[in-house]
C-alpha cells in the first residue's frame, strides 16, 4: 500500500507542540496532516499531572491569548487549581492546575478531529523526504508518504530514546512506547548536530494504599481561577497530599548510588538542574536531610498517584525501600516504577526564531526535540512554529515576539541564541522585563495579534478588551481622585493603614507608599473596594511597580526604536568595549544590517544587544550615520 497525501503543513508528533502547531495552522486556513503513532496517545502528559506554574503558567496565558488550546484543555481536565506565588505581586503569579491526564488527551484528540482541515494519520514517520537542503515531506514505516510545503518535527523524547531503571535498559520514547531512529539519522544527514539529554520521572503509587493520616492535605484555591478566556468557571475536585522524606533516605541512596545509572555513568545525557532526581538532590544538597514530596492524583478514574519530588532511575528494590521509608507511604503499592529517559535533541541554535532550521528549506522543529522540558514550553514553540510555517509559506511576515513583549519571546530568544547544556525550563527570572509580563497582562499584550492572525475570534477580543479598559479607567481614577487627612474616607482608613497622612494626596500615590500595607488599605479605597480580589491585587501591584514599569517601558521603547536602525559598518568591523570576542566575531561574520538582525544571530546575548544599542545611540547623538561610519 503506497498512499501519498499532500498538505500545507505536515506535523510529526501529536504531543503538546504538535497539537498547538496543527491547531494554529488549521485555524489560519492551512491544510494540516498530523502523523502520530497512535490516536490514543495524543497530548500525553508522561510526567507531572499538572499544567502551569511559575513561568510555565505565564507561557500558558500567552498561548491562550494567541488562541492556543492548552489553557482551554487544562481548564476542562483540571482537578485542582492553585495560583502559586499568590502572596506576592501579580507579575509573578503562576497559575497551575492538577489535570486528569486521560481527559486532557481525549479533549485534545476531539478538538483535532473536529477541525475539518486537520487530518490525523496513524503511523510512524521513519524518514524525511529531503534533498538539496530542502525537505519536501515525510516517509512512513508502512510505505505511505506525506508531501508538505513545510514539515514540522515535534518528536519529544522519541529520537534515540533509551529508558533506564537501575541497570535495566530498554529502547523507548516513553513508558510502553517504541523509540524512533530513522528521523534522527536524516537530521544528521542534513548536517544538524544532535546532543544527548536525559530526564526522569518518579514512581506512580496506588492511591488506595496510602496512609492519609500521615499526609498533609493541600487544597485548591477558593475560588479557583480558570486559565483561559474561553472558560467561565472551573471547579476543584481533588486534593493533593504532602509529606517529607526522612533522613534515612539519604543512607539508602548512598548505599545504592553505584546502582544508579545516573551516577554509574550508564547515562551520558545531561539532566535538568531544576528538576533533579532524588539521588541528585541527596548528592548535591548534603545539608538537607528532608525533601518535600507531593502526591498528585493523575486522574479521576485512575488510582494512580504521581510522587512529585521522588524522580529516580534507581533499581526497583531501592525505589521500594525509599518510598516505604516515607511517612504515609509505608504500605504503598507501586503501579509503575520511576525511570530516566535519554534522548536526542537538536541544539536550538540551529533553528531561527521562526523555528525553521537554518539553511534547510521547509523544515521546522519544536518542543522537547529542541532541548526544552515541559508541556508549556513545548506548546508555546508548537504554536509559534505552526503560525510561522503558514506565514512564511504564504510569503508573509513571520510572527516574532521580543523579550520585552512576551515569555514566548524570551523562550525563543534564549533557545535560538544561546547554547544550552541541559533541558531548558521557563522561569520568571529569565525575563528581564518580568514586571511587564505578568499573567494578568497577557491578553492586553497579545490578544490583538491573535485576532490579526485569525487565531482569536474578534468578539472574544472585544469582551476582554472591555475588561482591561475598565481596569484602566479605575487606574486613572486612582491617579486623580484625592484623599485628604480630614476627609472621612481617610479617617475610616487610618487604623488599617497604620500611617499618618499629613497632606492631601492621590489614592495612587498613597498606595505606592512603601510603609503601608497596600493590600489591606486597597480593600477600603472607593472604587477599588468594589472590584474582585484579583483585579484589586493586580491594580495594587501595578501601582507598586510603577517606577520600575516606567523604566522598563522606556527601555522597551528604546529597543523598539533601535531595532530598525542600521548598525554602522565600523562597529561590525571593530566591535565595542564590553563585547566578548565571540560576539565580535559573530558581528564580523554575519554582518547584520540592523540591531533587529543582530538579535537573531545564534550566540548573541541580551547583554551584547544592550551594549550595541548603547553604541548606536551614542553614535547617533554625535550626529553621525551608519553610511558614513566606514572610517
Amino acid at each position, binding site marked *: 500500500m503506497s498512499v501519498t497525501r499532500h498538505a500545507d503543513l505536515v506535523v510529526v508528533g501529536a504531543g503538546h507542540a504538535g497539537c498547538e502547531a496543527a491547531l494554529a495552522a488549521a485555524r489560519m486556513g492551512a491544510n494540516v496532516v498530523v502523523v502520530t503513532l497512535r490516536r490514543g496517545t495524543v497530548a500525553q502528559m508522561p510526567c507531572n499531572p499538572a499544567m502551569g506554574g511559575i513561568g510555565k503558567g505565564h507561557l500558558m496565558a500567552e498561548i491562550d491569548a494567541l488562541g492556543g488550546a492548552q489553557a482551554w484543555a487544562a481548564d476542562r481536565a483540571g482537578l485542582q487549581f492553585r495560583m502559586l506565588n499568590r502572596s506576592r*505581586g501579580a507579575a509573578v503569579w503562576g497559575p497551575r492546575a492538577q489535570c486528569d491526564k486521560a481527559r486532557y488527551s481525549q479533549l485534545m484528540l476531539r478538538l483535532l478531529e473536529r477541525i475539518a482541515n486537520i487530518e490525523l494519520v496513524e503511523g510512524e514517520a521513519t524518514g524525511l523526504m529531503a534533498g538539496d537542503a530542502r525537505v519536501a515531506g515525510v516517509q512512513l514505516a508502512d510505505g505511505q508518504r506525506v508531501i508538505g510545503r513545510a514539515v514540522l518535527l515535534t518528536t519529544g523524547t522519541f529520537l534515540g530514546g533509551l529508558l533506564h531503571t537501575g541497570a535495566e535498559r530498554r529502547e523507548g520514547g516513553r513508558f510502553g512506547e517504541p523509540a524512533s531512529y530513522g528521523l534522527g539519522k536524516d537530521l544528521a544527514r542534513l548536517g544538524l548536530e544532535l546532543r544527548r539529554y536525559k530526564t526522569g520521572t518518579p514512581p506512580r503509587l496506588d492511591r488506595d494504599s496510602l496512609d492519609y493520616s500521615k499526609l498533609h492535605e493541600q487544597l485548591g484555591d477558593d475560588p479557583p481561577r480558570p486559565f483561559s478566556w474561553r472558560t467561565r468557571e472551573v471547579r476543584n475536585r481533588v486534593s493533593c497530599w504532602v509529606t517529607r522524606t526522612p533522613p534515612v533516605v539519604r543512607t539508602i541512596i548512598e548505599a545504592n548510588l553505584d546502582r544508579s545509572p545516573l551516577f554509574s555513568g550508564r547515562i551520558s545525557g545531561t539532566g535538568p538542574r531544576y528538576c533533579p532526581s532524588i539521588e541528585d538532590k541527596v548528592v548535591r544538597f548534603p545539608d538537607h536531610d528532608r525533601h518535600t514530596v507531593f502526591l498528585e492524583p493523575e486522574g479521576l478514574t485512575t488510582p494512580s498517584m504521581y510522587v512529585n519530588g521522588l524522580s529516580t532511575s534507581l533499581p526497583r528494590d531501592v525505589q521500594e525501600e525509599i518510598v516505604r521509608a516515607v511517612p504515609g507511604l509505608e504500605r504503598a503499592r507501586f503501579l509503575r516504577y520511576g525511570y530516566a529517559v535519554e534522548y536526542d535533541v537538536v541544539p536550538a541554535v540551529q533553528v531561527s526564531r521562526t523555528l525553521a532550521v537554518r539553511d534547510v528549506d521547509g523544515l521546522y522543529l519544536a518542543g522537547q526535540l529542541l532541548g526544552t522540558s515541559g508541556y508549556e514550553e513545548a506548546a508555546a514553540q508548537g504554536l509559534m512554529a505552526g503560525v510561522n510555517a503558514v506565514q512564511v509559506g504564504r510569503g508573509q511576515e513571520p510572527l516574532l515576539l521580543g523579550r520585552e513583549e512576551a515569555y514566548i519571546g524570551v523562550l525563543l530568544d534564549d533557545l535560538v541564541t544561546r547554547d544550552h547544556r541541559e533541558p531548558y525550563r521557563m522561569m520568571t*527570572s529569565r525575563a528581564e522585563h518580568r514586571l511587564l509580563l505578568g499573567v494578568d497582562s497577557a491578553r492586553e499584550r497579545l490578544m490583538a495579534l491573535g485576532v490579526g492572525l485569525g487565531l482569536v475570534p474578534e468578539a472574544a477580543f472585544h469582551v476582554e478588551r472591555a475588561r482591561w479598559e475598565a481596569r484602566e479607567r479605575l487606574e486613572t481614577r486612582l491617579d486623580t481622585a484625592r484623599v485628604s487627612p480630614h476627609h472621612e474616607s481617610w479617617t475610616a482608613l487610618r487604623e488599617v493603614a497604620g500611617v499618618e497622612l499629613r497632606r492631601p494626596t492621590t489614592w495612587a500615590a498613597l498606595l505606592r507608599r512603601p510603609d503601608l500595607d497596600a493590600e489591606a488599605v486597597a480593600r477600603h479605597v472607593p472604587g477599588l473596594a468594589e472590584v474582585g480580589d484579583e483585579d484589586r491585587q493586580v491594580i495594587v501591584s501595578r501601582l507598586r511597580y510603577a517606577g520600575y514599569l516606567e523604566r522598563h517601558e522606556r527601555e522597551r521603547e528604546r529597543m523598539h526604536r533601535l531595532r530598525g536602525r542600521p548598525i*554602522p559598518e565600523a562597529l561590525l568591523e*571593530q566591535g565595542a568595549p*564590553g563585547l566578548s570576542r565571540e560576539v565580535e566575531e559573530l558581528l564580523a561574520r554575519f554582518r547584520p544590517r540592523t540591531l533587529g538582525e543582530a538579535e537573531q544571530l545564534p550566540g548573541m546575548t541580551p547583554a551584547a544587544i544592550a551594549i550595541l544599542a548603547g553604541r548606536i545611540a*551614542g*553614535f547617533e547623538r554625535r550626529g553621525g550615520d551608519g553610511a558614513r561610519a566606514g572610517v
Partner: protein
Amino acid sequence: MDSSSVWSFDLAGGADTIVAVATPPGHGALALLRLSGADTSRIAAELCPGLDIAESWRAQLTVVRCGDGLPQERAVAIVYRGPRSYTGEDMLELTVHGSPALVQGVMHECVELGCRPAQPGEFTRRAVANGKMDVTQAEGIADLIAAETAWQLRVAQAQVRGVLSARVAETRRVLVGLLARIEGELDLAAQGVGAPPGELAAELATAVRGLQWLLATARAGERIRDGVRVVILGPPNSGKSTLFNRLLRCERAIVSVHPGTTRDVLEAEVEIGGVRVVLADTAGLRESSDLVEQEGIRRAEAAAAAADVIVFLRDARTVAGPGPRGWEPDGRPWIGVLSKTDLVNGPVSGDQRWVAVSLTTGAGWEDLESRLQALVIGELGETDGVVAVSRRHAAGLRAALNELGAIRLAETEVAAEAVRAAIDHLGEIIGDVTSEEVLDAVFARFCVGK
C-alpha cells in the same frame, strides 16, 4: 573623516593606527613616540629602515626617518605584538633625542605613512576596549600620571592594580548571590525551596555595609585629590606669616615687625604627611577702622569658614583672652600654637591643644609638625590607605545604595528589580556595563599620548 566619527568608533576597537608623543612638549634629553594599531608593523618598517619587526619586546638601535630633506636620526625602538602590549594591539615605541624639530619631523613622517594623531586618552581607551584593563584602572592611570603627593600616588597605584575594582566586584558578587536566592524564592516557591528570610536580610546588610564603607572613602578621595584646606588664623603679629613660610619652606609671605602686614589671604600648596594641603595665611584678627584691613579680616574669616583644619596662633607673651574674636572652631579640628616662646622667661603654660613653639629657635617645631600631620591625615576620614573613591565612583555607589535602601524583601519581585539595578550601577563603576557617556567622561581627563 570628521572628528565625531573618529571619536565614536576608532577608539572602540581601533582599526586605524594612531601616533602621539608621550613625553611633555618642549626640549628634553629624550622624547618618546608611541604608535598603536593594526598597521603598526608596516609603518614601523617604513619609518625605521633596518628595524627588525619580528624582534619583539626588545630594545633595538635603529634609524628613523624624520622628514623631507633631513638626514635620518638614530633612535631606540621597541616593537610590541598585540595582545601583549599596553593597548592590546601591535605597538611601536620610539625614543629619539628630545628636539622639538626632530619630534615634529618624525610625527610628520608617521602621518605621511598613514598614522592618525591620537586623541587624548586614546591609547588607554584602546586598552580598555581590548580588555587589558577596566574603567577604574584606566582612571587610575590618569590619576597616576597626575599624582603629585605620596597619597595621590598610593591611591592611584592601588587603583591601577585593580584594588578598587576588586572591592566593588566583591560587593557585586554578594548582590548577585542575593539576587539568585531571591529569584529562587520566586521561581521555585512551589517546590518548597526557600532561603530562611533572615539570611536574605543578612546578605543585603553585608552588601550595604560594603558599599557604605566604599562611599565613606569618598571624603578621603576628595581630600587626597583636591587637598585638605588648612587656614592659619590669629591676632596680628602673632607670627602667622612666619609659620606659613616655614611650612612652605620658602619666603612666600612678607614678614615684618609691624602688626597688620598681611592684608589679603595668601594660598599655597604644600605636602603634609604625604597629603596635598592648600595652606592659607590670613590677616590678623582685630578691631580695625582701616577699610583695607577690615576687608582683609573679612576674608580671613571667610577662609576660616571654608577650612578643614585651623591653626590658631597666639603670641605666648599675651594673656589667653576669652577666645579669639570672630573665630569659633565649629567642631572642626584645630590646633593652637603659642608662638615666640623664645621671648618668654620660664615655662609656657597652655592646655593640651596648644603647642609652644619658637619659630626663631625651632623649639617645639617637631611637635607642631607631627600634630599638624596627624590632623591632616585625620581629615581623610575613612580609608584603608589605598582605596579612596572619586566623585564618579561615589555617584555610582550612591545610586546603588539608593536602590538597596528602599528594598522591602517581602515584596520579592520588586526587590529583585532593585538588586538588579544596584548590580548594574556597580557594573558601571567597573565598566562592565558602561554607557557611552561614562566612557567619554572618564577619558576626557587624559592628555594625548596616554
